């Protein structure tokens, strides 16, 4: 049986891991290579690496960070941030990424998704969507309790309906949707379950829940109530508030399939004898 995936996310700016609240006020959370290695040892199921470096000069340097991250991590590595063309994606894959995640450029040109899927296969193409509560001004217009797609790191409101856009992305060949609730990002009050449900019931590809996780219970809820195939979090993992193992244990306790690795089993044994 397929296990739910627990995915730590490294938001990387100028070669350092940072994490903000509602996409702002970034604070330093360490070296990405060290963190990737620690998450690999902790039994993370996958790693998401988002390059939020603003400058073009930083882009070349990030390839080296990705290569060094890939070298220490024997789990799938997805990389997103600033991908505007197939060639950008190819460079990241050659540096060691297993999947690439497209966001702004895909909203502006959905054919970028098909071009990447044709070149690398759908399994390598993640469509990242930043969603914020509010009525859409396009698509299935008139839906007044929906969500709109935002681009440019949450700065630009496209007015697009999230459900319409998610369906389009899958039609174009996206193999997975990374769905971030901007309303919940960094708030630690739980994922936006209604948003998750809306998307998981609208598309046939796996959906990664993102934005709002504050506890292992929130992650269980994303799967049981939201239908998520994977759960992603950044700050609660980076700052040690919740461990990968605790999330997996909570999933198993809730009767959900999760991959327990040696790391948790050893810790359990240590706790049993302490």
């Amino acid at each position, binding site marked *: 049986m397929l296990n739910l995936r627990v995915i730590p996310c490294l938001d990387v700016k100028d070669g350092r891991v940072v994490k903000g609240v509602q996409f702002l006020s970034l604070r330093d959370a360490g070296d990405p290579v060290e963190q990737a290695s620690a998450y690999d040892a902790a039994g993370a199921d996958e790693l998401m690496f988002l390059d939020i470096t603003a400058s073009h000069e930083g882009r070349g340097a990030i390839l080296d960070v990705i290569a060094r991250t890939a070298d220490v991590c024997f789990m799938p590595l997805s990389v997103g941030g600033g991908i505007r063309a197939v060639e950008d994606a190819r460079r990241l894959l050659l540096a060691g990424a*297993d999947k690439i995640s497209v966001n702004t450029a895909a909203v502006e040109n959905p054919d970028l998704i098909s071009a990447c899927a044709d070149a690398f296969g759908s399994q390598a193409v993640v469509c990242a969507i930043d969603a914020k509560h509010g009525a859409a001004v396009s698509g299935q217009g008139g839906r007044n309790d929906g969500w709109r797609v935002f681009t440019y790191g949450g700065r630009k409101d496209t007015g697009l309906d999230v459900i319409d856009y998610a369906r389009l992305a899958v039609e174009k060949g996206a193999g997975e949707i990374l769905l971030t609730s901007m309303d919940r990002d960094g708030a630690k009050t739980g994922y936006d379950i209604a948003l998750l449900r809306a998307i998981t019931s609208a598309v*046939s590809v796996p959906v990664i829940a993102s934005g709002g996780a504050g506890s292992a219970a929130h992650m269980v809820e994303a799967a049981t109530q939201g239908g998520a195939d994977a759960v992603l979090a950044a700050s609660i993992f980076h700052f040690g508030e919740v461990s990968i193992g605790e999330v997996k244990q909570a999933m198993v306790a809730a009767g959900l399939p999760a991959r327990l690795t040696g790391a948790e089993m050893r810790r359990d044994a240590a706790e049993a004898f302490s």
Partner: protein
Amino acid sequence: MQTVALIDYGSGNLRSAQNALVKAAGAAPGGAEICVTSDPETVAAADRIVLPGVGAFAACREALTARSGLVEAITQAVQGRGVPFLGVCVGMQLLASRGLEFGETPGLDWIPGEVRRLTPASPTCKVPHMGWNSLDDISPAGQALGLAPDGAMYFTHSFAFHAADPADVAAFTDHGGRFAAAVARGNVAGVQFHPEKSQSAGLSLLARFLEWRP
């Protein structure tokens, strides 16, 4: 020291495969030198061959055929000299008689069967089949490769290998229906999952392959 030819035909995840094989070679008692190559002579002289693969069946087949003399060198080593061979993901699918992704494409036809789109019976089973899944019904050949039911492996694919002879399936997995997670016939083995991305379970399989005496 034995040499392992890791076939370079432009497949995207070559670096990951190399990285994991080097790590596995460090753990294997006899060690191994990992040569990333598309050179027919190097392939012809190798002690083991690994064929990675990411992307579409037809594109991978075309890329492999485009390198002059490469398919012939691999075939000669594997079928002629009996060199142990491991195909990974599309590298495994290429062992089939044909692939049905974007039309019909002939495979290497070393293990009769065809590669068809996954059609899970349950709508909750998404395609691509993406994530960590367990193995079951492991054949003696699968056991010789170290496949075990307790270690989940990382899968990411939309097509699966349907072997004409069930005896060629070394392990199954389930995602709204059962399909081949691994195939093996003689000195030829293939895995649908990515051992290079399956943490310790995957690295153990690669280390076992480096010692495999089919």
